[in-house]
């Protein structure tokens, strides 16, 4: 078990290096950045604990991936396997829980720990062979696969919206919309194998524009119901809802061009910093998107010409 965690630590350092950052500097960055982002989040919205719970859940779920767990089961005896799963879930949940304790969110802190324990016992989340219907299947693949992987986030967002409307809490519903938009951005984090780029009979610019068009259309399809509901229930705040949707869509488009700006590698630290800055200051997207569009076109050139 000790060896397993030593290897995971080494993998973490290598992952940081792959971003183009010296591993220990990156580790220090995470240790400083995580609390800093938490402070920022709690300063900006009163619904930070809900978002925090959502982020914690989103971090824990991938650890339960079926392939990964099947591999772990071949490595460890069953009891040891459960101990490993519990330990890694608690390790991941601890920073979230600690920060929630700092903010005196006792219940939320406890919930994160409880969820991490429960998830460690559910050998997930086994990848079901049952095909989940999706409204995006006519234009595969980012939203099609993303929807099937994270349909539960959409469900949570819809439930939160419903609760927000029921208790007359506009901000809660707005947070749900923001979570959906963040999810759409997340659909464009993993670069696909080169075959799936090469196969297009399009120039790099045409492919990027096609991807942007699909992202725009699908983001609207996913987020418009909540946007319309919010605008209908809170017409005086419709401009805020509209602005959030606009900023969110631009951020989704940013994630499309950023993904391909480093292709076939994953986006590095400079790209991630740009995305984080753009999240905080959306007007910058008007500069960033054209810039990363050009870079993405250059990166795709070897595969499409």
């Amino acid at each position, binding site marked *: 078990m000790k060896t397993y965690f030593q290897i995971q630590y080494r993998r973490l350092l290598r992952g940081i290096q792959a971003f183009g950052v010296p591993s220990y500097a990156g580790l220090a960055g995470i240790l400083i950045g995580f609390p800093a982002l938490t402070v920022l989040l709690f300063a900006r919205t009163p619904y930070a604990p809900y978002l925090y719970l959502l982020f914690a859940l989103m971090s824990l779920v991938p650890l339960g991936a079926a392939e990964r767990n099947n591999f772990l089961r071949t490595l460890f005896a069953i009891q040891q396997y459960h101990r490993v799963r519990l330990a890694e879930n608690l390790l991941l949940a601890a920073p979230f829980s600690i920060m929630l304790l700092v903010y005196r969110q006792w219940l939320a802190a406890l919930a994160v720990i409880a969820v991490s324990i429960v998830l460690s016992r559910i050998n997930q989340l086994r990848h079901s062979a049952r*095909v989940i219907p999706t409204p995006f299947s006519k234009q*595969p693949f980012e939203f099609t696969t993303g929807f099937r992987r994270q349909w539960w986030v959409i469900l949570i967002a819809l439930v939160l919206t419903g609760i927000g409307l029921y208790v007359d809490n506009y901000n809660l519903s707005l947070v749900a919309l923001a979570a959906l938009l963040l999810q759409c951005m997340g659909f464009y984090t993993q670069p696909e194998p080169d075959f799936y780029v090469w196969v297009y*009979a399009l120039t790099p610019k045409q492919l990027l524009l096609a991807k942007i068009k699909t992202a725009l259309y699908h983001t609207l399809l996913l987020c418009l119901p909540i946007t319309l509901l919010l605008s209908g229930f809170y017409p005086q705040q419709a401009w805020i809802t509209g602005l959030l949707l606009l900023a969110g869509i631009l951020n989704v488009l940013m994630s499309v061009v950023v993904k391909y700006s480093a292709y076939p590698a994953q986006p590095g630290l400079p790209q991630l910093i740009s995305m984080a800055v753009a999240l905080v200051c959306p007007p910058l997207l008007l500069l960033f998107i054209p810039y990363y569009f050009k870079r993405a076109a250059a990166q795709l050139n070897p595969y499409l010409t």
Partner: protein
Amino acid sequence: MITIEALNKSYGEHTVLQNIHLELKRGEVNGIAGENGAGKTTLFKCLAGLKKYTGTIRYEGSGLLKNVTGFLPATPYFLSRLTGKEYLQLMAHARGRYGTDIEAGNVFDLPLEEYAENYSTGMQKKLAITGLLIQQNELFILDEPFNGVDIHSNIIIREIIARLKQANKIVVMSSHIFSTLNDSCDHLHHLKEGRIQKTVGKGRFEEIETAMKGEGIGARLDQLLAADPSATV
């Protein structure tokens, strides 16, 4: 016709392909035979435009060769949580064929409503081949098309290759099974250590088979099998 002239490919100081010259004519099936690591897949990827190379690949047809090329990798990769139908849609859309009747193109009767990642190896290969067919390509690069498929599918794939030839398409394929190369190919090229050692026409394929046997482990195997089993290790 596709003409490959002086094609070279290296990874740093390691040369994988050296001075490859090939002519791939319409209505002909070209086979590439070679040991593991001889450079077959690299050659196919260069031809498809998936890898950079030095040298020339000329296509005497209209448009960009890449856009009319169908490439079947030795191990096709399928995106997670995408059904067979969606995969085929993606392949068709990628070539601008939006109105393609996917169901009609399902020549292997695959369960298209299931996730492609859950298909067996043979079914995945069939799905990938179906994808190439619905794209209506001009050049078909088939890297080990018979690997992992059952006897029935083997027959169908042979039939497909024969039909592609009749339809005046250009086909280049590799296989480790000489009988399939014998049945399907018009020309066979022996690739060894990144060089085309020999090219022979139909009826003379055994020359390459014999040459490849000579490279093999026959003598060492004989020696091993003839060893005295009572001898202590």
